[in-house]
């Protein structure tokens, strides 16, 4: 069965028309290229209720995979990880592998030198995998949500383009989750 993919792009700056979303169209093109079908693309604010509504309705409509972009940064309006974790009934944890990855990129000697902002960026839902973009700063979080594979990507297009072939494309090509 070919993957049925919903795309949810998250960002108040998109909803205010300050920044044009280029991720959704790029991702849609890639999903189609690897044999998937995109059913709906939805854009919402950095708002927990709106994020939950968008992701859970994609799940309710029978998506096999859901890709989100945006809201993974260090600032207080970056709410995607915490919100999606709560939607799945899970807490969040700091992924120590990501902390080490950031430490190497920053050329720091010890993980302990990573500050609170970067530790927030390294925070993922419990029972989720986080894979870094070796060429960039972002990472892809992959989680199983009641049999649906959820991919959580950052907002910057360069990161999305770097992460998709590493973590999403192989799963979609595999046909299942």
């Amino acid at each position, binding site marked *: 069965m070919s993957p049925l993919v919903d795309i949810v792009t998250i960002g108040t700056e998109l909803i205010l028309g300050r920044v044009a979303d280029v991720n959704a169209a790029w991702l849609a093109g*890639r999903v189609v290229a690897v044999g998937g079908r995109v059913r709906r693309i939805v854009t919402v604010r950095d708002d927990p209720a709106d994020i939950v509504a968008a992701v859970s309705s994609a799940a309710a409509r029978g998506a096999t995979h859901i890709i989100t972009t945006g809201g993974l940064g260090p600032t207080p*309006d970056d709410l995607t990880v915490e919100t999606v974790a709560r939607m799945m009934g899970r807490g969040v944890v700091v992924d120590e592998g990501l902390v080490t990855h950031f430490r190497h990129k920053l050329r720091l000697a010890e993980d302990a030198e990573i500050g609170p902002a970067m530790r927030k960026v390294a925070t993922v839902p419990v029972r989720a995998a986080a894979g870094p973009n070796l060429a960039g700063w972002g990472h892809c979080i992959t989680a199983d949500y009641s049999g649906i594979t959820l991919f959580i990507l950052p907002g910057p297009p360069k990161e999305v383009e770097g992460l998709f072939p590493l973590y999403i494309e192989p799963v979609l090509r595999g046909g299942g989750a």
Partner: protein
Amino acid sequence: MAADLTVEVYSIGTELIMGRIQDTNAHWIAGQVAVLGGALRRMTVVPDDMDEIVASLEDALSRRARVVIVTGGLGPTPDDMTVEALARLAGVDPVLDEATLEDFMRRRNLTTREEATPPMLKMATVPEGAEVFHNPVGWAPCIKLVKDEVTFFVLPGPPREMEALFNGYVAEFISASVQTRSAALRVIVNMFESEVSPLLEAVMARYPTTYLKAYVAMRHALEQGLPVDIVANGKDAADAQHILNAAVEYLSILVAEQGKQMELYDA
């Protein structure tokens, strides 16, 4: 204060959902809605699929959006099904709009109904009970239909036509329905996101109707500085501009206190 005028935007087109074409309409509309004081809540792209279009528009009804703006799917070909989907949603029949057909015939110098082509007939068809607004720069008209207190506007997909019809009819409806307005400015600071983030928080705390956001992804090199958007909502356009000015001034003071510089963003 009156409730927000919640707005949703739908872009209909299989070429959009397959990523063949980048949708620019929703982004343009989002910017216009913000300035006019509307509260955009969601943008949705769906394929040219009757069931998907109807189901997704029903979702907007159930979310009780006040205004739903739909672009695309108004052309003469079989994959253009927005009118029929809207009619189905509203529980009415698609009917020929005589005034629109007469306008088409005048523009083509046709004198009898028999000369009207099937594409003309299709593009002059609207859901029964809809208001129809003439398209000054193309063929498919703007359609306005109210269902369960939700006002739907349907606009053709070509950006030039969409913009003309939005400016001609939708903008006035939104601005007449809501008092608030917004104003925005982009500046650039020679700071890291982690340095400027607390300052943005401080401005938002002092001016609660503002939204500030730094765009790390738009900084291609450190020496280029970091773009920061400041968006302010006010009770009218002058108030929004006043709050924006105050927020920008406060941010500039906070930036200067850090020994850094802020200037207007020149795209």
